[in-house]
């Protein structure tokens, strides 16, 4: 076994887990509190990526670009909620799914026209292009460490926001009993808009920090959205803690599976069989795990209390 490769894939998986958590946290908050199935959550991820890429180009600095893009994504999300999605709270899930599906179709096409099929990229500044030696001959790209650290910091910040502040208290109260919070005189409309904006900013942040590695392109949000669904189904809808643990597990299993399953398959079958079955099984791995979790705990690993 190649330990350098294992360590590298471990960091890749952890990084995917962090990105998944940032997307899934907003999704699960919005669903837990507003009972809204928002397929267009991946669109907000795409917003973050494109806005950051564009602002980086204008300002010439990746950091400044992201700093400007974050509030813009937040406002874009709040506008989306205020103008359209607000009317969906009284509707059933089928209507919600379709309207947000319509939003995806619209924005994917709009961004395709505005930025072209090649999308937009963010140039990584020189001081982040190096690598850091960890132990032995294992090295990690600096920017990968930045992604993981900043993601963990955001997760920590979210934890404090939800568990220690007044707005967090309202969010928790809203998640367990919406009607009662409204009856106690809280401006529930405002709270919903704020929560949606928060979710949008988290997704947008995920989209922008991954763009220097990948690229911003139209339709980038849907792949991550479906993985985020898997995450919150495993973690339990409405639970941020569940989303975090499930996201890290999903990220690690998906990434490690893709690089090591064919090696493992070689032990039980010949080369040709392993080369066919390896990619097939590793592409299905997380869905199989989701099925197993559901078979054992249909509410997910961490069902939120009071739901």
């Amino acid at each position, binding site marked *: 076994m190649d330990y350098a490769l294992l360590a590298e894939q471990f960091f890749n998986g952890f990084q995917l887990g962090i990105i998944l958590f940032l997307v899934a946290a907003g999704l699960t908050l919005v*669903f837990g509190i507003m009972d809204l*199935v928002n397929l267009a959550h991946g669109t907000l991820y795409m917003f973050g990526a494109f806005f950051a890429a564009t602002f980086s180009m204008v300002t010439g600095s990746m950091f400044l670009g992201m700093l400007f893009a974050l509030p813009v994504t937040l406002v874009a999300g709040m506008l989306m909620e205020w103008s*359209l999605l607000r*009317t969906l709270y009284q509707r059933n*899930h*089928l*209507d919600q*799914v*379709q*309207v947000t*599906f*319509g*939003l*995806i*179709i*619209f*924005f*994917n*096409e*709009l961004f*395709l*026209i505005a930025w072209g099929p090649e999308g937009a990229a963010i140039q990584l500044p020189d001081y982040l292009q190096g690598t850091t030696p960890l132990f032995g001959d294992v090295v990690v790209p600096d920017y990968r460490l930045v992604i993981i650290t900043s993601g963990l910091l955001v997760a920590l910040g979210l934890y404090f926001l939800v568990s220690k502040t007044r707005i967090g208290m309202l969010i928790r109260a809203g998640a367990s009993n919406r009607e009662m919070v409204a009856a106690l005189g809280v401006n529930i409309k405002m709270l919903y808009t704020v929560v949606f904006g928060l979710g949008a900013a988290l997704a947008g942040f995920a989209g922008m920090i991954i763009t220097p590695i990948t690229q911003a392109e139209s339709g980038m949000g*849907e792949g991550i959205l*479906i993985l985020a*669904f*898997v995450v*919150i*189904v495993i973690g339990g*809808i409405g639970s941020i803690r569940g989303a975090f643990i499930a996201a890290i597990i999903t990220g690690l299993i998906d990434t490690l599976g893709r690089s090591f399953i064919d090696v493992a398959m070689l032990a039980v079958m010949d080369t040709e069989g392993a080369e*066919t079955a390896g*990619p*097939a099984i590793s*592409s*299905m791995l997380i*869905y*199989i795990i*989701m*099925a197993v979790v*559901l*078979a054992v705990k*249909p509410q997910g690993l961490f069902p939120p209390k009071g739901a």
Partner: protein
Amino acid sequence: MGKILSLMKTPRGIYNTILVLLCLSMPFLAPAIEQDFYRDVMLRAMIFAIATISLNLIMGYGGMISFGHAVYLGVGGYAVGILSYHGIESGWIQWSVGIIGSGLLALLFGAICLRTKGVYFIMITLAFAQMIYFLSVSIEKYGSDDGLNIDTRSNFGIEAFDLNDPMTMYYTAFVLLMACLYFSHRIVNSRFGMVIRGSMSNDDRMGSIGYPTYPYKLAAFVIAGMMAGLSGILSANFESFVSPDMMFWTTSGEMIFMAVLGGLGTIFGPLGGTMIFLILSEMLSNITEAWHLIFGPFLIVVVLFARGGVEGIIGKFEKRND
């Protein structure tokens, strides 16, 4: 016959009759107005309508919002594609493998998904469909992303029945579409259908009056999967091509919209919705390449303001006349 004639007196009855007559006459109508390609558009719509009808059966009558129904299209299609790749061109084998295969997959997915409710169900059906999509992308032998060309259409070994003949292909799809419409009408109005509809309006109450709704819903889910598999088989035959795209999640999303556009929980609604959707997208894409820019908002407006779809709108007109 008298019963059918009396149905035609209502606006919805007239609308439904027009739909069927359009399907029946398009091979002659299209050349008459010198728009030959409309025959293919209509054939495609009829084939896809079979899948939409099957989705309506579980979604419109059973409240099971499957966001992964396109996966059974793929199973049906790939059954034809893969068997023909290995030189098995018999329609009897291809079609039975396709229909039984999609039924078995629906049984497996349904057994897991139906343990959950509401939004979980939506997300899990979507995730499982994506799993099969990624599976089809990952197998290079059968074309990966590029899909699989099918050299020859299913061969049933009957001289007079050759799917390579365009008219035979068209009317085979037409007859199967009519059969599916009739079948779904019979299911919905059977005791079995009553249980499904009952569980949609109140699952707990159905349980407490003594119906274990799980096996009923699972049976409906499997029937719908097999019907969608049939649609995939026809599609593979008509296009002579299958690709992972036919089970991509956007196809499932469009399928939901077609059923809603036509009118959920009505027998002819999915047929009308599919025809309108495919003809409209054909026309829009002729006007501009960026037709999704129009289509997205159109979808939103229909969902927000046109409750009950086309059938619902015509139905309102009906009451005013009475």
